[in-house]
C-alpha cells in the first residue's frame, strides 16, 4: 500500500500587483487509512494544495511523490470530488458513475456492474437512469463521490464536497462518507470550512493560514473512529472533548485572521 508525501511544496502565482504566495513550504503525509482534513480561512491555499496533489498544477518548489515516485500530472490513482459536483449533465446517473471507467476503457457491461456496486454503497439504487439535474443536491454530491470511488483510486481528493448542502443532508452524507471510507479503506484529503465537519470526519486535521498559505498546526483525531465503533454522531458532537477541541481550533483560526 502507498503513501503520498508532499515535501516543502510552494506555489507562487505571478500577478501584476506582485506575486501571490498561495502556498509556502507545505509538507504533508497522507498514509494508509488517513482521512486528512484541511481547514482555514478563505484564500489560505487549500484548493491550491489539492490541485498540486491532484497534479493539475506543478509546484513552484518542492515535490509531491507517491511511494517516492514524483507525480507528473493528474493520474487515475487520485480521484477528485468538487463542491460544484461537476457531473456531466448529458449522462444519466449510472453513466456519470461509470464515467471514469469509460475513460479507462472498461467495457460497458463490466463498468455498469461496477458502477451499480457504488450506487448502492451510496444509497442511490433506483436512480440509475435519472437525469443528474433532476436529483437533489445531496444526491448529486453522492453521485460525484460514487464516480470518484468507481475507478478504485488510492486517494480521494475532495474540495468542500458538502459545502453546498443543507445542515441535515450534510450530516447524513458525512455519515455515509465515513462508512464508505471505512469499507473501502481509501486515503482521503478533504477540504472544508466547517470545524465540526473537520473534527467529525478526520483522522488528521491540518490548519492553514493565508498570506503566505502555510500549514500552521496539525491535530490527530479519533472522533470518526468512535463513530464507526458505534457511538452515535450526536453524542460525539456533544461530548466534552469534541467541544474543547472545537474551541481550540476556532481560537487558533481566529488568532490567524
Amino acid at each position, binding site marked *: 500500500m502507498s503513501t503520498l508525501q508532499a515535501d516543502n511544496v510552494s506555489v507562487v502565482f505571478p500577478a501584476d500587483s506582485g506575486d501571490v504566495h498561495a502556498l509556502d513550504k507545505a509538507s504533508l503525509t497522507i498514509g494508509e487509512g488517513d482521512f486528512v482534513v484541511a481547514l482555514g480561512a478563505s484564500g489560505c491555499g487549500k484548493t491550491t494544495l489539492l490541485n498540486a496533489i*491532484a*497534479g*493539475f498544477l506543478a509546484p513552484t518548489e518542492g515535490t509531491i511523490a507517491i511511494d517516492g515516485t514524483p507525480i507528473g*500530472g*493528474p*493520474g*487515475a490513482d*487520485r*480521484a*477528485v470530488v*468538487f463542491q*460544484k459536483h*461537476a457531473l*456531466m*449533465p*448529458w449522462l444519466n446517473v449510472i453513466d456519470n458513475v461509470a*464515467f*471514469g471507467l*469509460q*475513460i*479507462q476503457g472498461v467495457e460497458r457491461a463490466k463498468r455498469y456492474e461496477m458502477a451499480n456496486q457504488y450506487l448502492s454503497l451510496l444509497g442511490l439504487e433506483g436512480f440509475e437512469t435519472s*437525469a443528474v*439535474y433532476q436529483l437533489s443536491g445531496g444526491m448529486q454530491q453522492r453521485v460525484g463521490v460514487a*464516480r470518484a470511488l468507481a*475507478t478504485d483510486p488510492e486517494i480521494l*481528493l475532495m474540495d468542500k464536497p458538502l459545502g453546498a448542502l443543507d445542515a441535515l443532508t450534510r450530516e447524513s452524507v458525512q455519515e455515509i462518507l465515513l462508512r464508505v471510507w471505512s469499507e473501502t479503506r481509501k486515503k482521503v484529503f478533504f477540504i472544508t470550512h466547517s470545524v465540526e465537519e473537520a473534527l467529525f470526519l478526520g483522522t488528521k486535521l491540518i490548519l492553514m493560514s493565508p498570506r503566505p498559505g502555510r500549514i500552521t498546526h496539525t491535530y490527530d483525531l479519533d472522533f470518526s473512529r468512535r463513530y464507526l465503533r458505534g457511538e452515535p454522531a450526536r453524542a460525539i458532537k456533544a461530548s466534552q472533548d469534541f467541544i474543547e477541541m472545537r474551541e481550540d481550533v476556532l481560537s487558533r483560526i481566529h488568532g490567524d485572521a
Partner: protein
Amino acid sequence: MTVEANHKQAGRGIARVLMNIGRRRRPTTEVYGQPGAGRSSLISFATAFVLLLVWWLVTNAELVKPLFLPPPEMVFDKFVEVSSEGFNNATLFEHALQSIMRVFAAFALACVTAIPIGIGMGVNKLMRGLFDPPIEFYRPIPPLAYLPLIIIWFGIGETSKILLIYLGIFAPLALSARAGVRSASIEQIHVAYSFGASRWQVLKHVVFKAALPEILTGMRIAIGFGWTVLVAAEMVAATSGLGYMVLSASEFLNTSVVILGIIVIGFLAYMFDMIMRFIEGKLVPWKGRA
C-alpha cells in the same frame, strides 16, 4: 328560462373562458420560477390574429391603396393562383422548393465546415490564429457588398447563389462553435484528467458534449441568416425561387405576390426554427440546467 337570462349566462360563460385562457396550464409549483417561464403560444396566436385583423381593417376601409398594401383576401387569392397556375413559369411550391434547396445546401455545407473549424479555433491556438482574421474581417460586411465579387469569380450559376448563403451562415456558426467549447467547466475537465484521460478524451467526452447546446443555438441563428441572404442570392440571374419571385413581382408592382413571397419565406423560416427547437429539446434536454 327567458332569452335574456340565456344571454346573460352565455355572457358569463364567455367571461369565464376568457379568464381561464390566462390561467390554464399555469404551473403551480414554479410560480416564482424563471422570469417569463411558461407557454406563450396562446398570446402568440392572439398577436397574429390581431395583426391580421388590423391589416384587414386598414385595407378594407380603403385607408391605403392596394398598390401599397393589398387586402389579405387579395393576397390569399394570389396564393391560390400562384399555387395552381404559377408565377413566371413555376408554381409556388416549385419556387419554395428551389429556395429551400439552396438554403439547405448552404446550411449543410456550413455545418460540416464551420462547426469543425469553430471547434478547432476554440481548442487550438494555430487554428484560431489562422481563421480568426479572415472570419472577423468578412463577418460584418453585408453579403450584398461582396456579391459582385462572387459573380465575377464564380459566374451567375447555382454555385454563386449557394456560396453567398453559405458565407452568410458560416461566420455565426463558426463563432458559436468556438464559444461553445468554453462551456465545459474547469471542474468537469479536471475530473476527466484525474481519471487518466488523454487530451483527446477530454475533448471527446467533455468539451464537445458541453459545447453541443451552444452549437445547436448557433445552428438555429445561422439558418435564420440563411433565409435573410436568400433574396440577395436570388437576385443573380435566377429563374425560380421565392426571392426571385418577390423581386420580379416588384418590377411589375405586383404587390400581392411580393407580400405572398414575404409571408412564405417568413413561414418557412419559422417552421425550420420550430424543427430546430424540437431537435434541441431532444438532443440537449439538459441545456441551461447543468
